[in-house]
């Protein structure tokens, strides 16, 4: 079926039921166009036939808003009497007054907009910048309670980018005659939907829809409370001890609790370093009320992770986020999984190192498994935890430059830190293995003096995995790495097969039991059930010599033991090499 036709159909039928997360997700992730369509959903009625009307209505609405809020004193609609309409007089009717009032806001917005995604050419376009500034200004004027806060431009930027992308894709398809299969009616609707002239209008409407979800994090704490709080603040009271004053703070406290649940080790480590989630979201303790600092944790929430993740992956992440409305629970989970992702880095670094890693989050190599992890935290029963490998390029920042921590990372004795962590009963992920590999790689790279500054994350991945010539070490390590991963996959496959077979057997036993109720059948069913049980317990035999009988524990046990086993194996291999 034609792609465009399909997207129309999907928009109509499937996405409204996107509550079924798996189905909606798969569809939405197919391409970015879905992002647009499904976002528009809130702005568009259910019936595609009504789209045209509603689109023109919302576009008109924006035009009117723009006229009322973006005042041009030269406009002829104002009184042309120079006594009333001149730049300096402060009479009420003077349009110049509002013009000057907006000037400050316009300045701030202009500054922020010019800093949006400097590495992407699209945002260097002056027209686009002007458009963005206009949208933000209109939004600020239209929603005085939210106003403009720093960071909103980073939410708008991906939206406008995607809409533009979709428009261009549609134009391209039109030129290539890919729309023949569509009916005239459908084509009209699409034509209306993807109209270049209305980029600004559509962006504004989408932006408003997204802001509905996000604006809670932009709220200022209520002014009546906060000064009092500052007065009652006791000496030596830490930021995290005080009562949360805004919804942003409440959410941050929630995140802290969630982290405590999912990864107590990491939470303990962070709190021992005095980095609670709300620390940086809070006002820096100063008696000047307006002197505030917006730091990383608040930054993460506010920008919807825009700073921590490259744009392409970001679009994907947003898709996932926006399907699962209201977005705040999932956002919290993503927050936690961002932390868990780099737990091996965080656990091995000191205060300064931690802050560096948090401020300049290392790029995520595989966004897919990351999203799966987040969804696992969101709903552990429905979504399986993905197999985690080291997923971040720890040595570079998003911009591609060398990560500051690279040079100053403390080189602790490997075995000790690894053992310690194992003793602390790290959660059942393969992540426990990651630091070992990472460190070995690093030491090898350092030893052979091949540390080069990679220009892009992708290229760096190649550099990371392809060892330098004559470097037996690197080769060996890589081979082991591959072995580990193949073994892991094989294990997984076997696991799955065993589970399925045992399930089938159980069903079979059930059927047999239901069909006839004589003793022979009963014994047959018993036999089948036993068979399935043994299957479940057998499945880990190749790796772990003596698995416990219980099937459920078994899985945990396997996941916990295998990585560290391999880790130790690798370690011993390494130490023998060192001695030679």
């Amino acid at each position: 079926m034609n792609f465009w036709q399909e997207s129309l159909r999907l928009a109509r039928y499937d996405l409204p039921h996107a509550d079924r997360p798996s189905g909606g997700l798969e569809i939405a992730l197919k391409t970015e166009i879905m992002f647009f369509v499904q976002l528009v959903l809130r702005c568009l009625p259910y019936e595609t036939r009504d789209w045209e009307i509603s689109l023109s209505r919302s576009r008109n609405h924006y035009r009117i808003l723009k006229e009322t809020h973006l005042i041009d004193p030269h406009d002829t609609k104002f009184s042309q009497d120079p006594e009333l309409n001149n730049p300096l007089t402060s009479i009420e009717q003077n349009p110049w007054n509002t013009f000057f009032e907006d000037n400050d806001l316009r300045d701030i917005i202009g500054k922020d907009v010019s800093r949006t995604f400097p590495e992407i050419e699209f945002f260097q376009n002056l027209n686009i910048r002007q458009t963005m500034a206009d949208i933000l200004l209109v939004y600020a004027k239209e929603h005085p309670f939210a106003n403009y806060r720093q960071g909103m431009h980073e939410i708008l930027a991906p939206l406008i980018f995607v809409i533009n992308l979709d428009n261009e894709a549609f134009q391209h398809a039109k030129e290539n005659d890919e729309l023949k299969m569509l009916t005239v009616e459908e084509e009209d609707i699409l034509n209306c939907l993807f109209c270049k002239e209305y980029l600004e209008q559509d962006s504004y409407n989408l932006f408003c829809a997204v802001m509905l979800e996000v604006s809670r994090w932009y709220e200022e704490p209520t002014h009546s409370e906060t000064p009092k709080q500052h007065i009652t603040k006791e000496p030596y009271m830490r930021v995290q001890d005080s009562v949360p004053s805004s919804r942003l703070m409440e959410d941050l406290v929630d995140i802290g609790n969630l982290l405590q649940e999912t990864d107590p080790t990491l939470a303990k480590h962070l709190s021992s370093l005095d980095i609670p989630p709300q620390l940086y979201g809070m006002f820096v303790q100063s008696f000047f009320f307006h002197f505030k600092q917006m730091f990383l944790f608040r930054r993460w929430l506010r920008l919807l992770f825009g700073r921590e993740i490259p744009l392409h992956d970001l679009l994907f992440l947003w898709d996932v986020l926006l399907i699962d409305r209201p977005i705040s629970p999932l956002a919290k989970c993503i927050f936690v999984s961002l932390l868990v992702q780099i737990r091996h880095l965080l656990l091995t670094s000191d205060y300064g190192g931690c802050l560096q890693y948090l401020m300049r989050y290392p790029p995520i190599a595989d966004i897919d498994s990351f999203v799966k992890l987040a969804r696992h935290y969101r709903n552990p029963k429905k979504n399986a935890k993905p197999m985690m490998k080291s997923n971040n390029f720890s040595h570079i920042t998003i911009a591609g430059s060398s990560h500051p921590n690279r040079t100053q990372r403390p080189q602790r004795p490997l075995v000790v830190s690894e053992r310690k962590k194992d003793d602390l009963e790290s959660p059942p992920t393969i992540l426990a293995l990651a630091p070992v590999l990472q460190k070995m790689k690093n030491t090898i790279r350092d030893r052979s003096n091949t540390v080069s500054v990679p220009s892009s994350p992708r290229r760096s991945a190649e550099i990371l995995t392809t060892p330098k010539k004559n470097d037996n070490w690197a080769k060996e390590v890589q081979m082991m790495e591959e072995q580990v991963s193949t073994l892991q996959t094989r294990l997984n496959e076997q696991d799955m097969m065993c589970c399925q077979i045992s399930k089938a057997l159980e069903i079979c036993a059930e059927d047999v039991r239901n069909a006839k109720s004589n003793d022979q059948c009963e014994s047959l069913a018993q036999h089948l059930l036993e068979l399935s049980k043994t299957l479940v317990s057998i499945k880990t035999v190749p790796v772990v010599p003596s698995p416990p009988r219980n099937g459920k524990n078994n899985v945990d046990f396997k996941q916990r033991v295998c990585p560290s086993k391999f880790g130790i194996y690798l370690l011993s291999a390494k130490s023998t090499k060192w001695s030679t």
Partner: protein
Amino acid sequence: MLVLLIGDFNLPHRSANISPKFRKLLVPNKMQHVLCTGNLCSRETYDYLRTLSSDVHVVKGEFDDEMLKYPDTKVVTVGQFRIGVCHGHQIIPWGDSRMLELLARQLDVDILVTGNTYECSAVEKSGRFFVDPGSATGSFSVNKTGPVTPSFALLDVQADNVVTYLYRLIDDAVKVDRIIYKKSKST
């Protein structure tokens, strides 16, 4: 883009202060440039202009301190317009329109701002625009009989035209006039 044209203060020699009505109009953060036609006569006047905008251009009037080394003429480009500033006491005969045109051609400017006549005016002649902001304090002038009307001018520079607002203080009330100048296609 707003450009304030102001000059011939003669503070403190001939006047005590700028009228409070004018002071109320002239507030910071509105105009981007200030072009002064000279005769500030004191450091304080210059400081006052600096409070209105960070970009202040001053040319030399006949009563300004020689030590300050203000230039005789200055050309400032705002948007697509070249604006020349000169006090005008160097142009003889004073205020002669043909001599002013000559100067405008010499400087190759679209708008020529001169003072020294102590009378506010804005006229377009042969494709160029001549503005005289007059005296901001309404101080006494040697070539005028009778009282002088305090005045200044404000240019609103847009893409292809300039709207000039002339502010005059008549009978202790501010009168505003507007003159629009469009840049001709040939220049």
